[in-house]
């Protein structure tokens, strides 16, 4: 018995990138339209992928339609390259796209597919970020009818989303939306930027990299093109704020692994080894964390080599 999966013979003739060229072309055409109308949820014929919808099939179709054999791919899930979902997606691309390189280093990638995070390291014009989206429509929380939502988007009628922020402020004295923060793109359409934390929302604004968002189940693709305005919804006098990661005494928490104090932190429970409240914090972006560690290691070694010389 062969335990590793091999393409059956009749599938061995699949085109590069699993999807047939016609399907990829249609996705690319949709991408162009999405770029032309920043933030507009462009419908497309989402294909069945050999994995369940809701496991990043929207992002995967974008990736497979864009990738070429000279590309270098990075896949992350909630910041980590080594989580099961990220590994599965990466292996699938490696299997179906011979010649494509994969990497965990943000700066080496030409194409990054991600779920729930935008890398800490600033992206460049040479990169494309693909975000997996479960719920593409920011208006779904205030309007159940898709027909009415379309009209609201068309007329940029977003007052009911702002009422939600108003109610939040009344009840909690702050805006409590932690993920999927409604963000206005290029002054018109408001997007659901996928479940990225507030921390990542400012990275959408004037991004050097093209950002594409794909929802496989909902059959929508939308884009934040490079150098485009992306403004989180807020009031004039109640500005948008990212997570501040302060402890009880007001100090910025740091990553317990690399010591970074400028990254988005995940919280873990650790009774033995944590702070007083049994919590420890670590960079959510594993590649960023590794890089900080590596830099510290080389900084520690350098003086030694200088001494030797």
């Amino acid at each position, binding site marked *: 018995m062969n335990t590793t999966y091999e393409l059956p013979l009749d599938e061995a003739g699949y085109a590069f990138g699993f999807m047939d060229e016609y399907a990829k072309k249609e996705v690319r055409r949709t991408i162009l339209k999405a770029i032309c109308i920043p933030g507009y949820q462009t419908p497309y014929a989402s294909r069945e992928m050999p994995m369940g919808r809701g496991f990043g099939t929207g992002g995967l179709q974008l990736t497979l339609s864009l990738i070429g054999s000279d590309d270098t791919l990075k896949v992350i899930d909630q910041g980590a390259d080594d989580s099961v979902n990220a590994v599965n997606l990466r292996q699938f691309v490696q299997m179906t796209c011979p010649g494509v390189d994969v990497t965990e280093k943000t700066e080496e990638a030409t194409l990054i597919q991600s779920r729930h995070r935008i890398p800490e390291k600033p992206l460049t014009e040479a990169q494309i970020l693909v975000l997996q989206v479960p719920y593409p429509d920011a208006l779904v929380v205030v309007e159940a009818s898709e027909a009415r939502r379309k009209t609201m988007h068309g007329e940029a009628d977003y007052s009911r989303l702002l*009422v939600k922020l108003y*109610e939040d402020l*009344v009840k909690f004295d702050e805006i409590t939306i932690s993920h999927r923060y409604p963000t206005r793109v290029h002054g018109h359409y408001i997007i659901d930027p996928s479940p990225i934390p507030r921390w990542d929302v400012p990275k959408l604004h004037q991004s050097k990299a093209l950002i594409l968002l794909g929802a496989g189940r909902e059959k929508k693709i939308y884009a934040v093109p490079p150098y485009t305005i992306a403004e989180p919804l807020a009031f004039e006098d109640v500005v948008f704020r990212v997570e501040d990661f302060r402890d009880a005494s007001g100090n910025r928490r740091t990553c317990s692994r690399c010591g970074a104090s400028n990254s988005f932190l995940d919280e873990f429970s650790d009774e033995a080894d944590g702070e007083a409240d049994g919590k420890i914090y670590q960079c959510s972006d594993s590649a960023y964390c590794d890089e900080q560690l590596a830099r510290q290691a080389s900084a520690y070694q350098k003086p030694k080599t200088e001494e030797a010389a």
Partner: protein
Amino acid sequence: MSRKILEVNSLTKIHGTGCPLCLASTGPEADTNICPYCGSVVAAHGVSFDLYQGEILGIIGESGSGKSTVVKTLYFDDAPSAGEAVFFDEDAQYDLYSLNAAQQRSLRNKRFGMVYQNPHLGLNFNVSAGGNIAERLLMSDVANYGAIRERARNLLVRTEVLENRMDENPKKFSGGMQQRVQIAKALATRPPLLYLDEVTTGLDLSVQAAILDLILEIQHELGTAMIVVTHDLGVVRLLAGRTLVMKYGRVIETGLTDQILEDPQHAYTQRLVASAL
């Protein structure tokens, strides 16, 4: 003489497919608003009137006579089948039914206000009383949270809703209180034109009186023009300078409210007045 704010010409609303005989076979003479040939309902036909700044116009008539139809088409809740209406704003005039949906929405949000008999139609029961007012302000591009809070508080105080109930859901309020919140919401953008559809129907008499007083005060303070739809002659007597009487979708009598109530010309109006005494 004050400025004309609204001019309505031959407004018609037919529910159903309609046929060439609809109009001739319905109305007060035909004693029905349902076309016997095609079954369509001629909810309103040939309704024309002018409304002036700060004026309150009453529309009375029995149930089904087309009163709500008139204000619903003017507020864009419903599209008319024929006719036109021109709204004269401070520095522009709008032919209401040749505007596109976005322009209509903008007028509705910023320049018109509506208070419905049923608070469910006018209020969003998923948000607080203040949130309801905020919604209307946000629709007209007020984007300052502090300013919105302040304005909502003032409006609720003005309409005599207790200030400390501002952050409560109006679902829990009494009927009279819900109408006050609706009025506050309608007034949020200081619209020059307000539609009131049976706003006191179903409320206790003392509550009714207080709300009618409030409406009069608002008209005096803000100079808001209003169309008041009611089947209660007491309401038009108190509020409206002029009144239209409707029957089976047509206006059968129009004039100064006092005259209509003292000396009704049409037999139908005479019966209405007699039955109210």
